[in-house]
């Protein structure tokens, strides 16, 4: 057991940090650190900066533009980016559809799509959930009927994150309604500019428009946009959900937010002293910090197990990802709770007009909205109840 980073790891960290210091624009960083809302252009410009450096897809094979980093290096990279306050690299292309295309796509699909994902040409979104199919994803109803060399797609997807920015959507569609629900699903890539697609924003309780409904009205999709075999889409979907999950705990981001929480609390007064000197509040922060320390160690244990497995030619993470998802979101949500607690009645003002610019207003302005927004984390990506079901079955065998 060796829980210190090697000198090589530390050198790697220094390299990342130096590069981030030089290339992360201060205004962009200020927005991220200040919990402000980012534009498409801002996400994209950062994606392109990282892509130009060759670091945008550390999880990909080197031949397709990956980095060849060890699991530990990937972890360090994630942590440094999160700590620095970089915009998130959207996962829909790099972490989701990319690996599916790589694994199950044909050569033409790989050559066409992968470089465009890498360099940011295509912004992808995810067409999984439907109004009637949330936790029970396999019950999806969006139909794709083959007509000649086209599929005709009809139906609706929902909770489609940032679909308003997207060029492409990967969709689970029903191609055979007669068989068992998991067996009639296919995996289609659809151009968002296709006639018949309508995107309608869903306003969330923080009055943001992160998610959308996407409607398909006789949308024509070329058959060459099918991934793998028809009616085998459920296999690919599950692969996608199980791929690259250690980042799911978001330890780096939570460490940054913990520091932010402390800085906010330190400025609040209670009983004539700083709120961080208040035993009750300090205890809550300490408990949370300890939970986060434990989570970081748990992530690193999984990373370490991955490294050993990789060394023996075995693959990917198991159901531990469910643990990381649940604990990760609990920590994230708790951080936002304590931020709101810290600022007391000043949580109330809703200066939504200030949310695009950290120069407007104060650092505390977006915090209540951030709290409400983050309730999503225990719902999306397989709700925490679903994650507990997975642990129950896969780990505990109940």
């Amino acid at each position, binding site marked *: 057991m060796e829980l210190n980073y090697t000198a090589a790891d530390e050198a790697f960290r220094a390299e990342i940090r130096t590069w981030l210091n030089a290339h992360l624009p201060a205004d962009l960083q200020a927005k991220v650190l200040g919990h402000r809302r980012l534009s498409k252009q801002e996400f994209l410009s950062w994606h392109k900066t990282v892509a130009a450096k060759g670091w945008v897809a550390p999880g990909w094979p080197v031949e397709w533009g990956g980095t060849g980093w060890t699991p530990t290096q990937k972890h360090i990279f994630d942590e440094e980016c999160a700590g620095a306050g970089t915009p998130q690299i959207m996962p829909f292309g790099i972490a989701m559809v990319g690996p599916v295309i790589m694994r199950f796509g044909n050569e033409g699909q790989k050559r066409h799509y992968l470089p465009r994902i890498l360099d940011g040409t295509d912004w992808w979104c995810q067409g999984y959930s439907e109004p009637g199919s949330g936790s*029970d994803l396999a019950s999806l109803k969006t139909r794709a009927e083959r007509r000649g060399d086209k599929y005709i797609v009809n139906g609706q997807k929902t909770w489609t994150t940032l679909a308003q920015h997207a060029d492409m959507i990967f969709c689970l569609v029903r191609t055979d309604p007669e068989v068992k629900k998991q067996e009639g699903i296919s995996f289609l890539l659809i151009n968002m500019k296709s006639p018949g697609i309508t995107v309608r924003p869903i306003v969330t*309780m923080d009055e943001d428009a992160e998610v959308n409904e996407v409607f398909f009205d006789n949308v024509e999709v070329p058959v060459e946009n099918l991934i793998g075999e028809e009616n085998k889409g459920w296999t690919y979907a599950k692969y996608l959900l199980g791929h690259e999950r250690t980042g799911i705990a978001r330890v780096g981001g939570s460490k940054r937010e913990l520091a932010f929480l402390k800085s906010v609390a330190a400025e609040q007064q209670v009983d004539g002293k700083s709120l961080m000197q208040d035993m009750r509040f300090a205890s809550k922060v300490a408990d949370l910090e300890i939970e986060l320390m434990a989570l970081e160690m748990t992530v690193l244990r999984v990373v370490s197990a991955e490294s050993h497995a990789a060394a023996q030619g075995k693959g990917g993470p198991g159901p531990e990802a469910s643990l990381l998802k649940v604990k990760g979101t609990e920590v994230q949500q708790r951080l936002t709770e304590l931020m709101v607690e810290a600022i007391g009645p000043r949580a109330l003002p809703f*200066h939504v007009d200030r949310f695009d610019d950290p120069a407007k207003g104060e650092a505390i302005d977006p915090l*209540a909205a951030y709290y409400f927004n983050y309730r999503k984390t225990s*719902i999306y990506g397989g709700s925490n109840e679903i994650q507990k079901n997975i642990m129950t079955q896969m780990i505990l065998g109940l």
Partner: protein
Amino acid sequence: MDFAFSEEQTQLRDALRRYLSQQYTFEARKKIIHGSGTSDAAWTGLAELGLMGVPVPEPYGGFSGTGVDMLVVMEELGRGLVVEPYFATAVMGAAFIKHGGSDAHKTALLPNVADGSLKLACALTEKQSRHELHNVMLSGTAQGNDARRSAAPDNGFSLNGSKTVVLHGAQADKLIVSARTSGAARDKSGITVFVVDKAAAGVTVHDYRTIDGMRAADVTLVNVGVGRDAVLGKVDEGYALIERVAQVGVAALCAEAVGCMAAINEQTIEYLKTRKQFGVVIGKFQSLQHRAAEMFMEFEQARSLAYLASVKVDSADAGERARAIHAAKVRAGRAIRFVGQSAIQMHGGMGMTDELAVSHFFKRISMIEATLGDTDHHLAAFAALGSVQENTTAQAAALTA
């Protein structure tokens, strides 16, 4: 020992619930919060139901309502998710006049509160004060020769400083302002409470939305001159008045939270009964069933102490009053967190949307938690009361001696 509501209370509740369900629908409310923030029509409607008069003593045109009467009103306003300035005016504002006003204040102001023609707002919180209402820096300076003092009238004060998160400050006709007239920022003595005309020279009000659909304002006072007759209670001794009024406010907020949570629980149960996944309604999943049972228990426990607070808020026994008020806010706070978060979680993605009422209820109760002292604030205050053990027998008492 009787928890039943009187016939009058039941009638008031029914009338109010009927009015709100017909006139103050979720859609109507949405228009209000994205419009000017309050509705004159609704205000008139509520006044016609007699709501503004409930807390006002009879001699001044009201009904001399008790804490329990206010509980009935606030619970329904919570259930209806009402964003009108009732709390600012009829709960907090009226209580300031009632507990701190002179006969002249009462005669001049209370009848207008009772008939709905006067709106009040309470400017107590400052940027640095968090939950401590004695943390007051806005200065009240007695008459004198320098620039500031010269603004004060004979025997009066000049007010200078800022308040923040003044609930419905911009919608009010008059502001009730706490000011530092002597001592240092966190002294409990040296605070004086003034009634200030919002239209007075030197008063600036910046109106904004709050995240729970209400309105609040930042209020700035520059050389605002007020006379001795603007003082509520006694000069330098305003903090006792503020504390007393805050208790009235806390009892009302707990009742409002109970109304909100009643609605949340109903909506969640309804959702569990209709939403299907895996071929069954999700209310068949035991983990969700048990969470719903826990929401029910949290709600009932919070309700019990909201009732207690509504009775004890009128008590002449300061210790008993404080104990019930602090306990109710703590218990409401615990319930708010659990009930609110659980409701959103069990609604899944739908719970995150602006479209369903449940997210609005969740936002409102969360902000109630942050208003007039949060859970920790009242927990600390409760613990500081010491071990007042009511109704324990002499034998048990002897053990603690």
